[in-house]
């Protein structure tokens, strides 16, 4: 029987070690699952997780062959950008004990608003159009997150359910737009919008890859948020409201103010991610825009220990799993759902390992005492 004994202080060592152990457990469980599916486990794991890293290694140590090895690492970064943006915002939200599960919907609204700017906004120099585009995207996500914020602070409605319901609404809205009012006249029946004009496309940073400006935004924003949480009174407020709202009231902090702040922040970042992703990887609007990043970002946040800077690392790891998954589809004929299973397992193991931070585990014989 498992007995949990509380530690006097949370273990700092295990707070850092826990994600590592969780990843190891995920790999182990994944290997078993792959073997059960008739795949050679070690090879499959290599393709999923280690090949992208391996190619990055080659890129770094073989400068003459850079052009050959650049593709995978750049793709990993491209995938990591929206994950990092949304994930960083979610870390702040979760720290405040506000569970924004609807980031996927805010992402979609960001894409819609950005799309509106790209399709109907002014033409001009990218110095003008890009900030407009990004601001529109952030605003869209922020607006969509304002709904759960309002309903929670005014009416005490659970933000998990409200933000989730709005995710479905957002997807349907996008669907209607691209099949209806925004449907491109030249699309031959495909439900897509017109292409975005060039000035609304995010500039590429490295020739020959899709790695775009969003990388810089993601890094800057994550670092800024990490600083905010560690050094400012505003960040302290978020932590206090999340840990003990009554103590927050005692300190003079407004709980509803904090709820608004974290929801608007994470919604705005999710919206920004949506706009960025659509512009950088698709170049137009269509029904399927990878809004599921909004859910994967939840795992990113936990993997990053609910720290915005940690979310960068978490995003990288999950991006690797996505790219690995795509490679596995091609090379090993493995279905893409396997990636989702890996990600779900990772979160399970992470939560289980996190127990060790606060408790020591002792094994005792079942006869010691009542249940």
């Amino acid at each position: 029987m498992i007995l949990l004994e509380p530690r006097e202080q949370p273990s700092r060592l295990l707070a850092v070690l826990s994600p590592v152990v969780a990843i190891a457990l995920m790999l182990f469980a994944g290997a078993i699952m792959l073997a059960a599916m008739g795949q050679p486990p070690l090879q499959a794991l290599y393709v999923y997780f280690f090949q992208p890293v391996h190619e990055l290694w080659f890129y770094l140590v073989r400068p003459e062959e850079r052009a050959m090895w650049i593709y995978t690492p750049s793709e990993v970064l491209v995938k990591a950008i929206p994950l990092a943006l949304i994930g960083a915002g979610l870390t702040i939200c979760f720290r405040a004990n506000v569970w924004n599960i609807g980031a996927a919907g805010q992402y979609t609204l960001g894409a819609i608003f950005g799309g509106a700017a790209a399709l109907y906004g002014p033409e001009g120099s990218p110095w003008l159009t890009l900030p407009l585009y990004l601001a529109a995207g952030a605003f869209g996500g922020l607006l969509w997150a304002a709904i759960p914020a309002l309903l929670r602070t005014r009416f005490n409605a659970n933000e998990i359910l409200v933000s989730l319901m709005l995710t479905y609404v957002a997807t349907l809205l996008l669907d209607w737009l691209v099949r209806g009012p925004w449907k491109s006249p030249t699309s031959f029946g495909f439900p897509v919008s017109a292409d975005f004009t060039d000035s609304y496309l995010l500039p590429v940073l490295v020739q020959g890859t899709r790695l775009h400006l969003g990388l810089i935004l993601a890094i800057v924003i994550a670092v800024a948020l990490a600083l905010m949480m560690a050094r400012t009174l505003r960040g302290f407020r978020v932590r206090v409201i999340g840990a003990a709202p009554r103590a927050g009231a005692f300190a003079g902090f407004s709980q509803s103010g904090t709820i608004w702040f974290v929801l608007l922040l994470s919604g705005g970042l999710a919206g920004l991610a949506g706009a960025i992703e659509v512009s950088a990887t698709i170049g137009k609007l269509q029904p399927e825009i990878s809004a599921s990043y909004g859910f994967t970002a939840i795992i990113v946040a936990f993997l990053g220990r609910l720290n915005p800077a940690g979310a960068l690392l978490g995003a990288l790891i999950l991006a690797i799993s996505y790219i690995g998954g795509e490679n596995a589809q091609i090379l090993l004929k493995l279905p893409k759902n396997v990636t989702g299973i890996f990600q779900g397992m990772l979160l399970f193991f992470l939560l289980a390992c996190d127990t060790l931070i606060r408790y020591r585990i002792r094994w005792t014989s079942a006869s010691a005492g009542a249940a």
Partner: protein
Amino acid sequence: MEPFLISMMIAATPFLFAGMGELVAERSGVLNLGVEGMMLMGAVAAFAVSWSTGNSTLAILTGAFAGGLMALIFCVIALSLLANQAATGLALTIFGVGASGLIGQNFVGEALEPLQKLTIPVMSDSTMLGRVLFAHDGMVYLALVMAAAVAWFLSLSRAGLELRAVGDSHTSAHALGLPVIRIRYAATIFGGAMAGLGGAYLSLAYTPLWGENMTNGRGWIALALEVFATWRPWRLVAGAYLFATVTQLQFYGQNWGWPIPAQFLAMAPYLATVVALVIISRDIGLTKANAPACIGQPFRAER
């Protein structure tokens, strides 16, 4: 109107199953956000068994089993290892979506015979009321029987009293010697099995097909149903029928010539859920008085 009412009875069934199950779990103090994932696993497991063996009873049982198994994972992590219940439930959903997608990929597009309808001679055919109420498959009636059973269990049985006590104050329950964790395991696994049944009904009868993510948010709506019902069984039944009605609007609205685009009609259930949540939650006294006081809080016994 008649086809609409018939389909409403059918559409309410998954909500009834999943909602009742989660109600029991929440009354014991456990908040399991993984209902969507458990329903999907139930749906895919039931479909797979029915497609391979043709035995619908076996398929239904497998669906319940799959949901219960998922709930067991939740229990180990959230109840025994004291992980955050909200995060664990989310993990369950993410995992359930992925796992069900994987298991179901061979079945996409395959069709099944829908569950057999039970009929009572004369009554089932002759009147509209008869056709609406008395010509459904067994699971529609099972859902209502389960609802009554849960209501009885909670208010009139000793075990139900203990379960309510655990949800009200787990420290007091523990001090009196009630096995808190064991009761919560049982309640949560029951909730999972019921969610599995709800999912199984979707893939066996509602649309006898498998599609990825076919629950389409019903699990989340089932969670909202608890709040809407202020955790009372009979109100949950009313809520299930209400939401079922709203979900059917998207199909019948077009037939009835409503000039609203299909996507907006499809938004109806989700928006209705939000509205229902606001209406109930704004009365803080009501929710505080009825919500199980310990819901979502981890419990560790001092020994």
